[in-house]
């Protein structure tokens, strides 16, 4: 509870300090109606635009995005390819600081985030392509713990909600695990291979 309150107030402060426009539609704080930012004051943000700035709460929950009228700063663009469960490649132009889970939601890709990026589930499980897998920072112990519960775990498995885009991740490919139709009826979880 205290953490949630801190996130709310830091969000408001960060917005004021960074002078950026939040994208409320993709932020879980908005969904939870626990965001401290008053949408009516958005107008006042317009007057202090700076470079594209992308915010996340201290636990990497939310990302914000500049309005579309500014030209994109090429140094901030990160090209991402999602490969959905049917094998379809979906290229997406993202920005430094974007969260892979919320980016997927923004582009209508069906990556679930049941616990809303709080490391309490494994529904945002993705496979990362070999070339970029090693560029990711090592998972925290808590992420590894939740990954252990993901069906079809592989060496290159990560939780999407914990991947924050950096310039060196340009070209990253994220594959959504196929939801197996071969469910063991006794609930047995297949061993990872």
């Amino acid at each position, binding site marked *: *509870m205290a953490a949630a309150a801190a996130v709310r107030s830091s969000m408001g402060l960060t917005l004021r300090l960074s002078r950026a426009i939040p994208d409320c539609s993709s932020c*879980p704080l908005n*969904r*939870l109606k626990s965001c401290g930012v008053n949408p009516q004051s958005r107008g006042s943000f317009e007057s202090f635009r700076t470079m594209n700035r992308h915010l996340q709460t201290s636990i990497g929950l939310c990302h914000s995005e500049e309005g579309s009228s500014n030209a994109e700063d090429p140094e901030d663009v990160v090209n991402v390819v999602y490969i959905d469960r049917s094998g379809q490649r979906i290229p997406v132009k993202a920005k430094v600081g974007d969260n892979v889970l919320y980016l997927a939601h923004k582009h209508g890709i*069906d990556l*679930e985030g*049941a*616990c*809303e990026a*709080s*490391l*309490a*589930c*494994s*529904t945002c*499980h993705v496979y990362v392509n070999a070339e970029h897998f090693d560029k990711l920072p090592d998972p925290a112990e*808590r992420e*590894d*713990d*939740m990954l*252990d*519960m*993901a*069906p079809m*775990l592989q060496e290159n498995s990560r939780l999407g909600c914990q991947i924050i885009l950096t310039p060196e991740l340009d070209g990253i490919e994220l594959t959504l695990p196929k*939801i*197996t*139709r071969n*469910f*063991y*009826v*006794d*609930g*047995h*979880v297949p*061993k*990872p291979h």
Partner: protein
Amino acid sequence: FLVRLKTMKNTTDPSLGLYTRLNKAFFPFADSPGVRFSSCTPKVCIVGSGPAGFYTAQHLLKTHQNVHVDIYERLPVPFGLVRFGVAPDHPEVKNVINTFTQTAKHSRCRFYGNVNVGKDVSVGELKQAYHAVVLSYGAEGNRSMGVPGEGLAGVYSAKDFVGWYNGHPSCRELNPDLNCETAVILGQGNVALDVARVLLSPIDILKKTDITQPALEALVRSQIRRVLIVGRRGPVQVACTIKELREMVNLPGTKSEMVEADFDGVTEALKDLPRPRKRLTELLLKTALDTPGDKEQQRRHQASRTWGFRFFRSPSEVLADADGNKTVGIRLAVTRLEGSGEGARAVLTGEVEDVTCGLVISSIGYKSHPIDPSVPFDTRRAVIPNTMGRVKQATGLYCSGWLKTGPTGVIATTMNNSFDTARSLVEDMESEALDLSSVKTGSEVISALLEERGVKSVSFSDWEKIDSVEMSRGEASGKPREKILTVEEMIQVART
């Protein structure tokens, strides 16, 4: 509409069942020969509003642009085990409620709480009213140990104990007696660890959660200082996952006590284990065998509560006091393993061991019940026989969640399972394996039936009133919510 009912032809014929009369009142031409509506709105109903029900609904609504989904729930409140099973100190796991709320508020989705399918309305009546029925009512029963003394005071199923501290209306009167020093839990899955953790957590942590007030008060008075978590196989077979084990290891004010001999051969087995099992076993070994450093020594010295796994023990009898009423201990049969890994089996050795305790909690599995004689049910495995969610030997009938695969798995597992069933259903709608040619009346007729039978359903916005009252009551005591504990009060709030 009763006036309309009486004035329509064929609707007053008492030889027709009520359902048929109502159907004719609303759709006078629907069963006339030659009249077919070629592009009917597909109507699906889902029985059960836990993760399985909601994830099935979510996937249906997303992949089919016309389908209407009605979710029926026995209680006035939705969300099933997310509300009544997930431990109070795991609030992040409950975030999934936000996803479910979005689904419930979808324009093509309706929630009907306080409707007991099987009693207030039959599966047969639902099948007539809808193109397809999805059964996702989970597992409301539990496996029993099947040993003498199981019925004694002081013995509870984990399902009831968890239901009690989570405010399930049917567990309100449990009143477990916590006036003993030792509790023994049979079973070593995550539910067993949740129970152990709730029994031993510092009150300062629990009092800020949505644990019910009566349970909190009982835990304040509790004398329990030692919890043994007993399994009939060994450390490599333990069914819990690493997150829950870590929480026990790090539980403030507690220390662990294990039997070193139980871990013979485990270190050697590590190298062949798949990653999740390996990490879990490594943590278990470390907890059981490592010599603690100074800081840890001090922490253990100050700990007033202990917990530990006991392996190779299977319950054979619950022991009563001289009057034969209360639990004073449990007799455990000693086992040994045959085979290794996941498939290892516990075999009795003939030895027994008695453990003094006043509370016994059996956490050996939930169990589904059949809902209606017309629905196929596998009594041995306690699931509905199905292929990819399609109920065998039935048309228009599907199942998802624990009812489909058995009562194990976390929310992610149920999600995949439910998406699978939804996919099968949509396939059948598109391939016409499911007959969508006749108009189905869906909730119109079912609502009328329920009203006729004096059953008042609770809508999703009614639930939101209950939700709001619970949250504001919780605020007063620094809790996220104070759950309403009776169906009567839930309905009363819903009607305001």
